């Protein structure tokens, strides 16, 4: 009888030594899953070489098919660049830009000023100039909702410059980001 009790106690200790960690495991019932889907996009026009800009008064420049003001509403034929959703899922396209760099840089803003510019983005279907997205440093905005896999979307830009006190060349970056539409 004593031997039986000792055996049972030993068995109990062994089982508890395995069971307690499982009981205490905080991650046992937390799940993480992901479906194999692919995010990818291409953009046909990688750059906009504006050239020399007016330095004594505000000026305006359009990155459209013909370099002229975009139409209203904006039509695909007048847009400059084509985004293609080369990924596997229905996606949204967002856009953001950063302040121009080079010498005394240009700040992106909603109105022109000294060393301050306005950079706008428009795309097919935008109603008018007023609907164009005004890009501010680092702030994402939606350019296109629900672009199908293999779908394309055309877009363009409009730059308004103010005055500036430095003539060094300036460089700006615009980033298109893609995210699954849910």
């Amino acid at each position, binding site marked *: *009888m004593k031997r*039986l*009790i000792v055996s*049972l*106690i030993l*068995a*109990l200790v062994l*089982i*508890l030594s*395995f*069971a307690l*960690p*499982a*009981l205490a*495991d*905080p*991650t*046992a*019932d*937390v*799940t*993480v*899953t*992901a*479906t*194999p*889907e*692919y*995010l*990818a*996009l*291409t*953009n046909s*026009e*990688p*750059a*906009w070489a504006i050239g020399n800009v007016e330095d004594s008064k505000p000026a305006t420049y359009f990155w459209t098919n013909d370099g002229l003001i975009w139409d209203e509403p904006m039509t695909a034929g007048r847009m400059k*660049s084509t985004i293609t959703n*080369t*990924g*596997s*899922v229905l*996606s*949204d396209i*967002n856009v953001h830009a950063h302040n121009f760099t080079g010498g005394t840089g240009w700040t992106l803003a909603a109105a022109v000023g000294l060393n301050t510019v306005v950079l706008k983005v428009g795309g097919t279907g935008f109603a008018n100039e007023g609907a164009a997205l005004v890009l501010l440093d680092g702030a*994402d*905005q*939606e350019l296109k909702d629900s672009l199908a896999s293999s779908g394309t979307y055309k877009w363009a830009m409009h730059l308004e410059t103010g005055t500036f006190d430095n003539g060094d060349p300036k*460089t*700006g*970056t*615009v*980033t*298109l*980001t*893609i*995210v*699954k539409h*849910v």
Partner: protein
Amino acid sequence: MRNAVMFMVLVLMLIMGGCTIAPIPSSPTLVPEPAAPTSVVSPVPAQASAGVDWETKLFNNFWVSPAVVEIGNYHSGARKEWRIRIHNGRDTKSDYLVSYKVPVETADGYAMPLPEAEFWVMIAERTPMLAPKETRDVLVAFAIPDEENTKYSKLAGTKWEFWIRVVENPKAMVNSGYDVRWLVQMR
């Protein structure tokens, strides 16, 4: 004596019936950052849709996978990980920035993250440089510290979202980036 033995047998049976061995975690184990670029087997199966070999199709593209990571039944103290796969489709090396991002918009029923949520996300390799045509997995871990359980009890039962952004370092004026949605459902 017999009663004591019966009692112990009963306890033993209750424990064996109530205990489970902890399941093998569904996410890969955190490993040290590799010293040299490697192409590792992703925990995500390669094919996203029937009949399309996406990784072959996108071989010459910059792509990221998956598009969405879902964490379910989450509670503070738990740590969950997933590897985001990045592919450099260029014929030259390219470097990327992997970072936490507040969503531009959230999925239906999901809230924006709390400001401190970025401190709950750990990215193993924030500035990977990939060789031409290389595919690399970058581990992302998510954990709300257990000691903050009371502080964040308000999150109990909620659903919220954050993004992990992968951006290629600018090569031109117009560049591209990819946002992976992380959908968190709290216990």
